[in-house]
């Protein structure tokens, strides 16, 4: 392996751990990221000549620490920071000379990134940058935001953490479930803007699914007893299992009910089922477990060959009870239409306030489908037209056009 590859690999494996470790002690996220960036640059220069150190991470931390001390001297950061730095420095030396690994502070980092004082829209980007080391440009494209605007917002969020002295400490025991919920929400937002099959296929945000699953697995290591953590991971894995089946060889979109089960990734489904089972042991139902259970019900077709629409409709009912999102309302209407007839589904769909759905693609796609089944051709044509106009994915647009052309 070349020096460059070693550095890249170290960065991928350890970046988030090193940032978290330094930031928990140093508390200035931007300074820590800059210092670590310098350390990686220094590694690129020195490792070529002097060879790769035995403990690359310890080497990087000690360089980063030196940069932080220099910076503290230059900017005359409060005297009180010095004891922290010295303690950190001793800690680093001890870790460099022993076989002990760096303490993994990434859970604290995830909890900090989703602090209630931070703008909800910035929690996911912040977490992707600090825990996974994703650059602002990549995050911006994933969220369809101007890259320079994303950079500015990230910088502002970090400045806020410093200015308001947001704590890196673990919340109190009674606060943990709520704070964990913010972390789950942020990871879920990285997975995609929607979670049902149609919304995922149409989401322009596709590049971050792997990252989201990585974060979900990471969270499971830290918080294994929370059933919602299992639920979220099961949900993402179920959706991921169907990635390949969502398009045929020509790239045409295939809706869930028409997908060939043989193209689903069985190992991911099995893993998801395991997590969902583990979650159910806790006896505390939650939003992510319900969403995972809906995906699980779809996956049962692999074994039973049939769809349990009645059961799916009931799960949606439960989900709406906890949080009546547009996605859940539309999902329930679709399941009810399959289980009890298109009229009933349509009635539920029409009960959703029109102002909320005017730009919501899944609503119009389902409306088109139900009107078509009820042979209301004009309504169907119009609904399909909105759905196509609101779609961001070309294969979904083509699929809907084909549906509309059969009218």
């Amino acid at each position, binding site marked *: 392996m070349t020096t460059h590859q070693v550095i890249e690999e170290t960065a991928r494996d350890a970046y988030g751990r090193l940032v978290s470790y330094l930031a928990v002690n140093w508390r200035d996220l931007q300074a820590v990221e800059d210092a670590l960036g310098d350390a990686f640059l220094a590694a690129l220069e020195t490792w070529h000549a002097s060879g790769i150190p035995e403990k690359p991470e310890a080497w990087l931390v000690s360089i980063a620490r030196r940069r932080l001390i220099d910076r503290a001297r230059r900017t005359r950061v409060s005297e009180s920071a010095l004891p922290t730095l010295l303690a950190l420095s001793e800690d680093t030396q001890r870790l460099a000379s022993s076989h002990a690994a760096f303490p993994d502070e990434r859970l604290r980092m995830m909890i900090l990134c989703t602090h209630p004082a931070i703008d909800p829209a910035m929690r996911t980007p912040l977490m992707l940058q600090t825990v996974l080391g994703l650059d602002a440009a990549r995050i911006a494209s994933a969220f*369809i935001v101007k890259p320079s*605007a994303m950079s500015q917002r990230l910088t502002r969020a970090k400045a806020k953490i410093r200015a308001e002295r947001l704590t890196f400490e673990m919340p109190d025991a009674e606060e943990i479930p709520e704070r964990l919920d913010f972390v789950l929400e942020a990871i879920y937002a990285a997975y995609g803007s929607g979670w049902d099959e149609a919304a995922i296929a149409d989401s322009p945000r596709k590049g971050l699914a792997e990252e989201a699953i990585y974060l979900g697995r990471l969270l499971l290591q830290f918080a294994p007893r929370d059933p919602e953590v299992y639920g979220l991971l099961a949900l993402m894995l179920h959706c991921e299992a169907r990635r390949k089946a969502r398009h045929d060889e020509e790239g045409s979109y295939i809706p869930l009910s028409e997908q060939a089960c043989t193209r689903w990734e069985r190992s991911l489904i099995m893993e998801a089922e395991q997590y969902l089972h583990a979650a159910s042991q806790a006896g505390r139902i939650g939003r992510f477990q319900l969403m995972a259970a809906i995906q699980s019900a779809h996956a049962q077709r692999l074994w039973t060959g049939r769809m349990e629409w009645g059961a799916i409709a009931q799960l949606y009912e439960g989900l709406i009870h906890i949080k009546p999102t547009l996605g859940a309302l539309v999902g329930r209407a679709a399941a009810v239409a399959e289980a009890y007839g298109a009229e009933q589904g349509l009635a539920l769909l029409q009960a959703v306030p029109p102002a909320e759905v*005017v730009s919501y693609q899944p609503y119009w796609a389902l409306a088109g489908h139900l009107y078509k089944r009820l042979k209301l051709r004009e309504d169907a044509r119009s609904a399909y037209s*909105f759905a*196509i*106009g*609101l*779609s961001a994915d070309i294969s979904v*647009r083509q699929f809907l056009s084909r549906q509309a052309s059969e009218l």
Partner: protein
Amino acid sequence: MTYTLMFYESQEDFAARIDPARKEAYLAGWTHYVRAIQEAGIGVFGSGLYGPESAATMKRRGGEVAVQDGPFPETKEQLGGIYVINVPDLDTALEWAARAPVETVEVRQNIPAL
């Protein structure tokens, strides 16, 4: 706030406009998109543009006016149409850009009228 979406089309797209086999699908893509914009209540003004070969470009060089056939500059993708939309911010404008039936959309804020 108003933003202008500038839709860039490839030669392929421009050709589809007049190709009997592809014309209908091409136009339908735009019809659906424009309907969605209008229904959302954000449409201010929009128009498609005739192809770049129909363009005339006026250039002043050192006080002298020169007129040339075709667009400025010559690139693979050319401006095919615009839409001015009224949305709260650039993020929302980009969200609408992602729904357009073309591969490239430039988005800029309009300077408010004085």
